[in-house]
């Protein structure tokens, strides 16, 4: 996994609540058996005026001029500013794959859906929860100034504005450690093989039908 340490990035605002993972990456793209290449189809139904199908060359598709991420000033954004309950619905990890492939490495919102939040950490994407008032302020500042950037420092657990104002955020120590170092979960877990086997042996005694 790609580590996440510090990011100074252009901010794009997506001003709607309850953005679901069906919207982030529509179902037809879930037919892929690969992990990569979802970026061009991120927010497909909002982003393009035609109907997208897997394998289409997106460079020639008609863009929806009303979709905020299509505005010139947000091209190259790596910080996504969002509203409540971002990433709700389907557990599809294709959603963080698509956002990461699009170029987003950090997402700031007042709240996230649980499964999406968890999936982000597995893919080098940092979901940051800030109070609704702080997010409101950042929306205002982003809209007010083209080229608005934020600096996200995972080690310090802060988001800093160009004016030098900082917002602190919380993150589980274990998740932070793994993301900072880009650690592979499975390798870490396999270090507990003895404990897992001991659990199985004990459980087999208590509840043998579970292992029948």
């Amino acid at each position, binding site marked *: 996994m790609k580590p996440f340490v510090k990011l100074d990035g252009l901010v794009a605002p997506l001003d709607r*609540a309850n953005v679901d993972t*069906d919207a982030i990456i529509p179902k037809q793209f879930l*037919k*892929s*058996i690969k992990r990569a290449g979802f970026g061009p189809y991120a927010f497909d139904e909002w982003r393009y005026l035609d109907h997208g199908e*897997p394998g289409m060359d997106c460079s020639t598709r008609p863009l929806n001029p009303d979709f905020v991420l299509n505005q010139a000033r947000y091209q190259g954004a790596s910080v996504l500013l969002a509203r409540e309950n971002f990433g709700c619905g389907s557990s599809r990890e294709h959603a963080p794959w698509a956002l990461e492939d699009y170029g987003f490495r950090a997402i700031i919102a007042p*709240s996230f859906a649980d499964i999406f939040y968890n999936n982000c950490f597995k893919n080098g994407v940092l979901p940051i929860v800030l109070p609704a008032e702080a997010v409101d302020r950042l929306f205002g500042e982003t809209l007010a100034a083209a080229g608005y950037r934020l600096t996200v420092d995972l080690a310090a657990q802060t988001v800093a504005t160009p004016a030098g104002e900082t917002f602190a955020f919380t993150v589980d*120590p274990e998740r932070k450690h793994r993301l900072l170092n880009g650690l592979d979960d499975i390798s870490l877990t396999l270090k507990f093989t003895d404990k897992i086997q001991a659990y199985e042996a004990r459980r087999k005694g208590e509840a043998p039908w579970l292992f029948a």
Partner: protein
Amino acid sequence: MNASTLYDKLWDAHVVHVEPDGTALIYIDRQLVHEVTSPQAFEGLKMNGRKPWRLASLLATPDHNIPTIHRDQGIADPVSRTQVETLDANCAEFGITEFGMNDPRQGIVHVIGPEQGFTQPGMTLVCGDSHTSTHGAFGTLAFGIGTSEVEHVLATQCLWQKKAKAMQVRVEGELPFGVTAKDVALAVIGRIGTAGGTGFALEFAGSAIRSLSMEGRMTLCNMAIEAGARAGMVAVDEKTVEYMRGRPYSPRGEQFEQAAAYWRSLVSDADARFDAVVELDAAAIKPQVTWGTSPEMVVAVDEQVPDPAQAPNSVKKSDWERALAYMGLRANTPMADIAVDKVFVGSCTNSRIEDLRDAAKVAQWAVARNRKVAGNVKLAMVVPGSGLVKAQAEAEGLDKVFTAAGFEWRDPGCSMCLAMNADRLEPGERCASTSNRNFEGRQGQGGRTHLVSPAMAAAAAVFGHFVDVRDLANEVMQ
């Protein structure tokens, strides 16, 4: 010892290791595998030379992509076909039990797990699908995971988890005639919102829940994720134990009795404390219909489309306006005046035998009056949740009732719940659907979804618009 919730008991029984920050390594008893969220997980295993930790913990079936008609001709869409063939190949390579597309036991993962007795009380069960919460109906800790975690469970039989908070959703009293588990689920979501359960494990309790069949409890737990909760659950009772008896993967003989004794302990202690409690009066719940693009945008069938001018705040106001524009609806329209183009009875929420029986009663009512699916309804389809549900329904003659009333009778799969196969809405089409999500584009780009119970969907098919099944209930639901 302190009093425990059901969730505490399930959690405690599966802790392998705890990190200083409270992150726990949790043992996973079962994983269901389907074609959409597994290919990258198997690829990861292969790249690292790893193998599944415990093959007996796994059961696979294709469900999302497969056709519900002319299955003998295979899958026409080459991309869908490749995904299903990839599941077949991965299961063959690793030795995983798979009910393939033409196996009579094939079906939606969340239907076949319980049906086979593969899902059992007291287990932890995961699947790369958010509706895994369904299995909580058995007093099981069950939740959806992403593909990285699918791979993690395959390789280690464990997951890293932080313990959630516990919420009790208590529904006391008797549900009125014509009001089902689906209506309870939608009423709960209407009450607490789609993020109301975020960070919680829900336990559904109260006399109305105890009165529900196992099928009804599955419908309810299925929708826990639509309230934001990864897991929903119901305590074990004798209905649970009886359901488990004699299923292919259930324990047998003496071991069944040993298991059943343990299962009966899977209830919240009387004085257990919950972090939150939500109470609903069963008698006050009416048949529900969603009007917008989130499951929390729901009203009773005898109500009207809400007016954004009445929204509680500006964020909701703009959400409602956007939803009305997408749905092609005007504020204050009576729900019963809304006409539908298509009807879908199916999905992991409502495709079990009891659901089909409910819908068939309405179809039977129509047939007895020489009525059929209304002329303005282009398609009314019934998609059973599994091959075994289909066979059971046919043994009861339900297929004949449906087809006589003008419904299409299909083969099992996820179908038009998410439209990964050929079953979908065209732009602008409006659907009465027994599925779980009314998100924009969920049933097809530009499609408009209204979530309802099976009887409500069938009634909408017959009348061509939403009707209150309670008005038919005395005649129909007997």
